[in-house]
């Protein structure tokens, strides 16, 4: 799988993502500077975490005007898999590739810790190798990760089965305590209607190595790999 990890001024999860990807077999991954204009040669595009343009104004607001984002739009339209992690998720929302928006955590404090997320559906290229209802241990690290969307949008997310991850308890219950940031309906990650663009606040790339306490992030990348190599056909 040929992967691009986009690098915006202020990205800081770019190297983490690159290394996580390279820990899989049959993967090549490279950094792509935000001034580049084409992503045609890649099968998978990752928008990493960080503070693009300092996250000034609004998270992701300035990055979405980077030249590379036109190539991202084009890739999204053509069905290429695109993953936005944390700041990458915020950029995808600002760019209109995902609905809704991410605002400041309800208690206004940055939060860095491990959290549990429930996989809502296996019916996506990003979760196809994970049975729905499984609970993953993933680190979060954000100050503006409260997912917000209007009623109609939330309804549509439900109707089209676009919510892929929710903050949950170890038993998979969706509770207020399990929600670290006040996200609507405990939403931690969503995809678009075509199901090829996925944004999430937790950091799967920080959970790919035993040393770091969890390898649950690998399942997301394995799903992506499987999808790219075997196509949409295979599932659980």
């Amino acid at each position, binding site marked *: 799988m040929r992967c691009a990890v986009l690098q915006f*001024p*202020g990205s*800081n*999860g770019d*190297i*983490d993502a690159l*290394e*996580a990807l390279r820990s899989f077999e049959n993967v090549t991954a490279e950094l792509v500077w935000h001034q580049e204009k084409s992503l045609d040669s890649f099968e998978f595009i990752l928008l990493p*975490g*960080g*503070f693009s*343009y*300092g*996250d*000034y104004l609004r998270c992701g607001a300035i990055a979405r005007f980077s030249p590379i984002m036109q190539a991202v739009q084009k890739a999204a339209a053509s069905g290429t898999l695109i993953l936005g992690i944390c700041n990458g998720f915020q950029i995808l929302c600002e760019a209109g590739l995902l609905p809704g928006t991410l605002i400041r955590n309800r208690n206004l*404090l*940055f*939060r*860095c*810790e*491990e*959290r*549990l997320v429930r996989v809502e559906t296996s019916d996506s290229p990003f979760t196809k190798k994970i049975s729905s209802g499984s609970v993953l*241990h993933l*680190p979060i*690290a954000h*100050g503006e990760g409260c997912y917000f969307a209007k009623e109609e949008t939330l309804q549509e997310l439900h109707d089209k089965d676009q919510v892929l991850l929710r903050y949950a308890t*170890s038993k998979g219950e969706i509770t207020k305590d399990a929600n670290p940031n006040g996200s609507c309906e405990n939403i931690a990650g969503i995809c678009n209607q075509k199901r090829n663009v996925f944004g999430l606040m937790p*950091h799967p*790339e*920080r959970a*790919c*190595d035993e*040393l*770091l*306490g969890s390898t649950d992030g690998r399942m997301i990348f394995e799903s992506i790999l499987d999808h790219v190599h075997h196509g949409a056909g295979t599932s659980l």
Partner: protein
Amino acid sequence: MSSLSSSPQLTPSILAEQHGLSSEEYQKILSLLGREPNREEIGVFSVMWSEHCSYKNSRLELKKFPTTGSKVLVKAGEENAGVIDIGDGWAVAFKIESHNHPSAVEPFQGAATGVGGIIRDIFTMGARPVFLLNSLRFGPISGDSLRARDNRQLFSGVVAGIGHYGNSIGVPTIGGEVYFDPSYNGNPLVNAFCLGVLKHEQIARGAAKGIGNPIFYVGAETGRDGLAGAAFASRELTEESKADRPAVQVGDPFREKLLLEACLELLASGCVAGIQDMGAAGLTCSTCETASRGGTGVEIDLDLVPKRSADLTSYELLLSESQERMLVIVHQGEEATVQRIFEKWELPYGLIGRVTDDGKMKVKRGKDLVVDIPARTLADEAPLYQREAATWKAPAPLDLTTVAECDPIIVLHQLLAHPSIASKQWIWRQYDHTVQTGTVVPPGSDAAVFYVREANKFLAATSDCNAIYCSLDPHEGAKIAVAEAARNLACSGAVPIGATDNLNFGNPHKPESFYELRAAVEGISEGCRAFDIPVTGGNVSLYNESQLASIDPTPTVALVGLIEKREQITTQFFKEPGDVIFLLGELGSELGGSHYLLASHGRKEGLPPRVDFEYEKAIHKQLLSLIRAGLVRSAHDCSEGGLAVALAEACFGDSNKAEVKLFGACIDLGKKGIRDDVALFNESQSRIIFSTKAQQVEQVEQELQASGLPFTRLGSVTKETILSIQLDEKEYSWSTEILHQSWFKAIPHLMQA
């Protein structure tokens, strides 16, 4: 040369006095220059000869530190930060730095720019910053008084500021320390530590080498930020200085991230002859220091400096402390490389001058010569003072009969809920400690452990200082700071390789304060010599006084260690029911300066515990040998709150996890014949509790017996969440769930008020 003629009544000597230069210092300037200085030159001398830049009151003391060693690649004082070899061609650069006064004025920005400053110090060395620590002190945060509210605001502002800068730039904050004590009312301490990693051949030098080489200014435009800030940091904090508004600098971590990447890219290109960050005293300090180090001169033109507004005066440009700026000297002919890289990273830059051969710092504004001073006189010929030190009076030893024996059941709750002992997760949860995917042991255990993937090395780091001990006995307190830091490293499986220290003291003109400074330096030196740890650099922050009094002497020690193998990484948390718990070291009995005395009796007195380095070292060596033999599942030292607190903390699992594990422990201390409160809460040094698998107990006991060191088999880890301690005939027991609540919720509760 401009003169002061415009205002006849303002003679240079009056102006010098207004800049805090003494009359002897002014005379020295006259003889160095052979003429009267102008306004700009007085400004330049005043900042370069301030305590902050010149260490004029402390340098003679600092010479006492051991600074050499076979692993030292760059020694303390040579450059912005020391560099230590970690093997296989890799090295680490690290340093601690204070931002106390700016944080008192504006906690968020003061702390943020402190982090920014220390990160620049590290990448100036050519190293990629990989983690941060922070050492903090505030006045008490409990209660409804105005003071407590102020302290809470300072505390939350500082933590948010540190988080803001570190999180944005993507350098994880993986550890630190914080204490709350009335001596810090109105004068909080904010010390930030950064460590970076580099290959030996990547070490960059802050020297202006190569006559004719171009000098570039890169990074943020200069504004009026922190004008006179360097001088400001060397004065006492008064009500007036709070109105010193221009001294507030705003940090821009985004700019710094770009500057960091651009500088590392530039350094990798091989075209850099010298590089220096602009910290305190900005342009002035960086130009004369690089010239002095290079044995050269520099000539720059202020018209070419990128500016926020065109009307900045020469004086302002020279003394501004705007953040996120660097001075880079490149080899002739490489101008285009600089241009390409800085344009890629969208950073302002300017070719502002050249390296010269006349040893002078010459500053022009267009055609006018504004400053003409021999560079060495500024950087290396600052006056040095030997201040008067008071003679020390040892405090009276504690008379135990005056200490009512409190119920241990209540005391343990009190101690665990004391903000200085309670869980600090409220703090580090606001710090991104997982970015860069190297944090193997996150904050919450004795020392943090970071994996440097490219070098395949495991680094451990900790910072420590019990200032109560230091206030009672600065020399012993400083020794303990080193011993405790080394012990924390040992508990994580690491061997110390280098130290950096931050000396936070009051006004050095007060003989008591100067004594404290000297005693602390000597204590740290003894400790570092004993452990064979070179001091690679540090920072001195004097004049830490509020309207009330000086702070408790606070010589913070940060140690960096190496862990040989992945399997040797150890944490303080019990791992499994049935594991057997040992105490390595004595049960102890020293109560002077203890947190028990403070939290339960409101007393800060007595003689603090003593440390014997030979014994302490033997304990660490023994623990490490057990760890290397694979016999240790957890290790935790006894520090504030003594044995009982250490046992409780070991029962609480890693709180960064989504599901926090809690254990209990069943402990029998046997017949001791000392008071229960003394047995449980004394703070004698050199003690470690560790756990081992039941099957390995015999082997452990054999090894310990052979070592001749004191040890006790305390009991075992239980699934049931009860901590029970048998002492003589009595048994005390606590629910670890409730203890955990007291400990975990203490700071969040206070901060919600």
